């Protein structure tokens, strides 16, 4: 009896244990097999954090590596109104640090919301002061902010990036795909306190920063151009001004100055008109500067030689029932002299000898009426009508720079073609693209667009243009010790009231290159609407060319090569 009772107890115990094991097994199968996927997702949600990280925007540097634009992480301040005990007290404490009115902050902090921005992308120092304050319900997150450490320098070329880091103007916009950092989602493991432990996938890489752009611009040349332009615009009380400096051999832009300037760090309260790059967008009637190209076309086509005698009609010639005037009453002069004296009649006669079709062909060959393909956004095409739309006076008018609209970049590129022996180059501002580690990804080569005139013609025109400076209208463009070639331009502007050419509003300009025999610089200076009815390209723009040219040549270490006698020489070490 005793033995059977013990056996029963053993069976019961075994059954209980077996039942327990079955239950555990059932639970295990439920958790690990049947609900495995659901529970795994729930667990991941608790200890994983997915964050979107974006690499910082790439840096922009000048040709010597000086930083012109770069990103920096700066604090953005937010509030959690629902957790604040006293919004008024917090607003008072924040106001002095953030330089925002107390009332404005208080209004934000009293909202019935769980998150509100108080100030975005403030200075790092403000963030540090805020940290020291350590206010409950006020937090700081770091965001990338674009800095332009040189202020207004080169602002029209650099453009600017918006609050969200998108390039909106200039190089920032044109090279957006290169500058923008790579965006990447990362899954991080976190502990019970919410601290990040390590990425779930150790093979995951951090987001890649944007590429670095090296410009062809030289900060010092740009500074010289901007300073001289600002001086000239202020002095002549002009509406605006433009200077472009090119390397004529390559088309590399060394400086592009536009006045008035703007500071890309504080662009939000400016009108788009202020940040428009007039050097590319605005077409103007070039006036007499066009005569350099007309002379080149006429000589290339053997329609004229520099020595060909041209009758100046004593300063008055009738074309299509309208009268063309010269400011100097010329008789018989050589074609070279006619250009040097900026004779409208001489240029008109050269244009007439060329004829409509050849004139139009050369306008196109020099790049007028088409984009120069410079790597900046917003470039205009100017205004060149086809010969079918020309009137009876058009050939004469275009030859003296009227009835045609050109942009400053078109004009300087055309003159650079005369400087380099007759080849039209594509102007460009970005020379290299490197990754964030500095490895070269792409070097932008100079690009020939086409040959416009022969080297012989270019040399002939250079001699004529040298005469403009030595004994013509551009005497004030002379640079001591250097041979300067160039052409002045004084174009009447259309009076919006009368819709006729104004006698008091002009676009004055000078375009040229130096040294004339081996040009290192091609430059255009445009002063728009100087406040003087006697203003001319020779009196307003030419001195600026001289001043910028002399300083830039000196900075670039270009010597005149001419013997110099010094009273006393002091090395400038």
């Amino acid at each position: 009896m005793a033995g059977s009772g013990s056996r029963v107890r053993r069976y019961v115990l075994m059954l209980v244990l077996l039942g327990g094991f079955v239950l555990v097994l059932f639970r295990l199968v439920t958790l690990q097999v049947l609900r495995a996927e659901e529970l795994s997702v729930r667990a991941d949600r608790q200890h994983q954090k997915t964050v979107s990280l974006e690499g910082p925007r790439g840096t922009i540097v000048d040709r010597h590596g000086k930083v012109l634009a770069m990103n920096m992480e700066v604090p953005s301040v937010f509030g959690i109104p629902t957790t604040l005990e006293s919004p008024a007290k917090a607003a008072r404490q924040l106001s002095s640090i953030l330089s925002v009115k107390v009332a404005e902050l208080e209004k934000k902090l009293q909202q019935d919301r769980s998150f509100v921005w108080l100030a975005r992308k403030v200075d790092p120092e403000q963030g540090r002061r805020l940290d020291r304050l350590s206010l409950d319900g006020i937090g700081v997150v770091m965001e990338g902010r674009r800095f332009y450490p040189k202020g207004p320098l080169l602002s029209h070329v650099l453009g600017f990036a918006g609050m969200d880091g998108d390039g909106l103007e200039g190089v920032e916009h044109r090279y957006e795909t290169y500058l923008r950092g790579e965006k990447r989602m990362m899954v991080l493991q976190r502990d019970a306190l919410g601290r990040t432990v390590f990425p779930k996938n150790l093979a995951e890489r951090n987001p890649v920063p944007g590429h670095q752009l090296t410009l062809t611009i030289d900060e010092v040349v740009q500074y010289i151009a901007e300073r001289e332009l600002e001086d000239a615009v202020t002095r002549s009380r002009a509406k605006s001004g433009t200077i472009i400096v090119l390397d004529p051999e390559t088309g590399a832009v060394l400086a592009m100055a536009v006045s008035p300037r703007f500071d890309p760090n504080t662009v939000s309260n400016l009108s788009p008109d202020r940040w428009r790059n007039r050097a590319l967008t605005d077409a103007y009637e070039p006036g007499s500067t066009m005569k350099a190209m007309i002379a080149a076309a006429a000589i290339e086509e053997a329609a004229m030689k520099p020595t060909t005698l041209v009758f100046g009609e004593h300063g008055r010639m009738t074309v299509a029932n309208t009268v063309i005037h010269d400011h100097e009453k010329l008789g018989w002069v050589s074609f070279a002299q006619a250009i040097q004296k900026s004779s409208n009649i001489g240029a008109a006669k050269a244009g007439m000898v060329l004829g409509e079709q050849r004139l139009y062909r050369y306008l196109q060959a020099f790049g007028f009426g088409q984009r120069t393909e410079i790597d900046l956004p917003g470039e205009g095409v100017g205004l060149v009508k086809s010969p079918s739309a020309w009137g009876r006076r058009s050939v004469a008018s275009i030859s003296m720079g009227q009835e045609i609209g050109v942009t400053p970049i078109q004009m300087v590129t055309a003159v650079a073609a005369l400087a380099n022996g007759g080849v039209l180059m594509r102007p460009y501002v970005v020379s290299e693209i490197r990754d964030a580690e500095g490895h070269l990804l792409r070097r932008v080569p100079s690009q020939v667009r086409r040959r416009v005139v022969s080297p012989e013609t270019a040399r002939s025109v250079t001699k004529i243009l040298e005469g403009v400076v030595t004994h013509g209208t551009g005497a004030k463009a002379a640079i001591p010790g250097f041979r300067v070639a160039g052409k002045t331009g004084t174009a009447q502007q259309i009076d919006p009231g009368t819709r006729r050419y104004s006698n008091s509003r002009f676009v004055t300009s000078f375009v040229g290159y130096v040294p004339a025999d081996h040009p290192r610089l091609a430059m255009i200076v445009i002063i728009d609407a100087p406040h003087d009815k006697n203003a001319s390209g020779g009196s307003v723009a030419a001195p600026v060319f001289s001043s910028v040219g002399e300083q830039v040549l000196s900075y670039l270490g270009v010597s005149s090569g001419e013997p110099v006698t010094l009273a006393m020489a002091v090395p400038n070490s």
Partner: protein
Amino acid sequence: MKIFTVLLGLCLVFVFVWERVDMVRIGYQIERLKRDKTVLERQRDELRVQFSSLSASNRIAKLATEQLGMSLPQQGQLILVQSRPSGTPPTDFAAAPVRVARNYLPSRRD
């Protein structure tokens, strides 16, 4: 033999647990170093911006003219000549430009 097997099993368990704990510890260490790196990178960027801003040509020119009393050379005062190393014939020397000031011209301030 049994004891040896149990000890071996315990050792394996210990190694496994130690490895996991060490991974977590290193994970925290990596994160701390990453934060330090971020802070240092921010400082570096801040200094780069400051350096670039302080070395801007317009600022230097302003300091030179307003604080040091310097002035720009007038037109024609600054010329470049090419120096010829001694002993080299005039025709085939590597031209090295040297800046000199022609100081017999009156300066703008005169």
